[in-house]
């Protein structure tokens, strides 16, 4: 396994209390006296050369975490290491880390060349080398010939690339990116996602990427930490997070998920029985059987297949009955809302493979059977906490 590039140990950050936001925790309990806990005792290891994302809703502490790694903010308590060295209290300019800021923060009075050369000049790199490195970097971000423009003359997408070049040209050990594509329109964002990934593979630098867009994180990341309220709920590669979300929050934040209350029964080979509220029993992978009996089981909408009432359902599949409430034809697929017998709403996406006309869709009001493979089932604790594979297990 690759070396650990960035390590956070029990990093805690509270704002308020005293002006600097430091050492608050020692004498004030959070939640009283207007203290805001932005980051709540996080342990994190980011490996060398990986594309790592912090994903979570607004206000969950992503930016604060990133700013502490960059040195713009000091943790209230905890330890931050870069390549094994304690940098918790080092100022930004003494860290081998560069940042792409959310609003780009290009220097408006300097040309693009001078913007990109800024870091190299501060480190007293020879003039000739600065020239070649800036030119190479502008080529990498596909902006050759823009040297003498000013930031004000650039579009958002181009300013974004300059910000990237300005940081990358310094060849930092770690590049921090705070929602760098947030200000771009959808099309440009998609294009930049691919490009960012290409550039990261090209330069081989560790990227720590902050975003609230799950699709963006899934597209680019090697690993993702899904954050909520100052902690991360699960850390893993995109596939694991999607297929095996460990908490209700993760299941809901990454894509659509159907969650059903269940109590876990006996184990039977590789599977365990899960008794649902409507009286039916389904099977889940035995590995998901945790210490608590009451859990929620989940299944993604595209994993479910619909069968007409009375039609034969393959033996190995989990089966549930319901009634179609709504069907939306989306072209490539159809999205159904099904009500199960005990009133739960279940979303189903079905590829329009065999359909030839609108008339052949399942119609609202129709009784249907829902079927999915036991292996496609995941489980989260009923109170929202992980049963398996949570922060400690990852």
């Amino acid at each position, binding site marked *: 396994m690759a070396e650990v590039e960035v390590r956070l140990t029990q990093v805690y950050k509270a704002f308020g209390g005293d*002006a600097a936001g430091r050492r608050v925790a020692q004498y004030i309990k959070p939640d009283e006296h207007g203290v805001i806990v932005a980051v709540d005792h996080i342990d994190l290891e980011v490996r060398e050369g990986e594309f790592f994302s912090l994903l979570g809703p607004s206000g969950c502490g992503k930016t604060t975490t990133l700013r502490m790694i*960059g*040195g*713009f903010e000091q943790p209230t308590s905890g330890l931050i290491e870069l390549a094994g060295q304690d940098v918790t209290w080092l*100022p*930004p*300019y003494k860290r081998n*880390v*560069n*940042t792409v*800021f959310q*609003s780009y*923060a*290009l*220097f*408006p*009075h*300097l040309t693009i060349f*001078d913007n990109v050369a*800024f*870091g190299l000049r*501060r*480190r007293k790199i020879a003039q000739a080398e600065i020239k070649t490195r800036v030119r190479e970097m502008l080529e990498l971000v596909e902006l050759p010939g823009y040297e003498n423009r000013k930031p004000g003359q650039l579009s958002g997408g181009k300013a974004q690339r300059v910000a990237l070049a*300005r*940081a990358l040209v*310094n060849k930092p050990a770690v590049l921090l990116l705070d929602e760098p594509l947030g200000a771009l329109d959808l099309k440009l964002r998609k294009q930049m996602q691919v490009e960012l990934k290409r550039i990261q593979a090209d330069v081989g630098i560790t990227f720590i990427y902050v975003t609230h867009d799950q699709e963006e994180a899934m597209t680019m990341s090697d690993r993702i930490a899904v954050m909520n309220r100052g902690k991360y709920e699960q850390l893993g590669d995109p596939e694991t997070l999607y297929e095996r979300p460990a908490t209700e929050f993760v299941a809901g934040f990454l894509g659509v998920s159907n969650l059903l209350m269940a109590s876990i029964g006996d184990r039977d080979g590789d599977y365990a029985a899960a008794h649902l509220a409507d009286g039916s029993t389904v099977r889940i992978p035995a590995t998901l059987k945790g210490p608590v009996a009451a859990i929620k089981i989940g299944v993604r909408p595209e994993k479910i297949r619909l069968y007409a009432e009375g039609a034969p359902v393959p033996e190995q599949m989990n089966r549930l009955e319901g009634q179609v409430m709504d069907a939306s034809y989306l072209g490539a697929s159809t999205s159904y809302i099904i009500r199960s017998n005990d009133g739960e709403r279940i979303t189903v996406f079905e590829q329009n493979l065999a359909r030839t006309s609108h008339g052949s869709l399942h119609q609202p009001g129709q009784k249907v059977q829902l079927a999915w493979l036991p292996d496609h089932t995941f489980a989260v604790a009923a109170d929202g906490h992980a049963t398996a594979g949570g922060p400690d297990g990852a």
Partner: protein
Amino acid sequence: MRSSRPVSPRASRAWRSRLGTVTPYALLAPGILWLLIFYVVPVAQMFIFSISTGSLETGFQITYSLDAYTEGLSRYGEQFGNSLVYGGTATILTLLIGFPVAYTIAFRGGRYKNLLLFLVIAPFFTSFLIRTISWKILLGDEGPLLGPLKHVLGILPGDASLVSTPYAVIAGLTYNFLPFMILPLYVALEKIDIRLIEAASDLYASRWEAFRRITFPLALPGVFAGTLLTFIPAMGDFVNAQLLGSPQTSMIGNVIQNRFLIQNDYPTAAALSFVLMAGILVAVLAYARVLGSEQLTG
């Protein structure tokens, strides 16, 4: 283009474009009128005085004589020099004092920002004259500054004096014009996005370098505005030199005031005013040039 239409599109377009060129001027008219009445007319009147001869009793006739200019310039070179030196020194001092003050208010003021800004302009609630006279007391031979230095600390000899020296005039000018420096500096500094300074520090700039490369260059418009707002009135000031100085420290403002109001020698006063105006204009243009090119090279 169809020609059967009642109003040809071309004609209507031409009319619209004519309207388009006229409208801006129509909108500017009140402003132009204002400038004409309150600026151009007095300046023209002054110019006419400066090329006239005569006295208040006999009336002034336009004689196109440049005597007022030649006489004024030859006699009052020293006072022009004083104005330049005192005004320039005071401007530099207000910049040196004002910058840290404006910086502190803008970046460290926190919730006291408005209070601190209010304190900066608070002196304006008292008359300019009274404040300047109180500086006479402050700087007096036995005043709160010199008194202790002479008798308690014994650093200065008993006959040391500040009032009536250029130092007192410069101190007065610096004090009186300080708010005119602080306010534009504050406005410029306040506008600076703190993330730019963070970005500089992210890019290996120490605090000092971040200041030198980012904060200061971005504050230059404020420096420019502040120095002009200080230098121009300080050059023409006569109150400080009159109250805190001596006949030896007369500035050109004192001469002009004296010629106008006491000797009623309008031509010379007007000519001196014109020379002062031209001098300031040249200085300002040269300054704008230097500062402008500095901003480009950053």
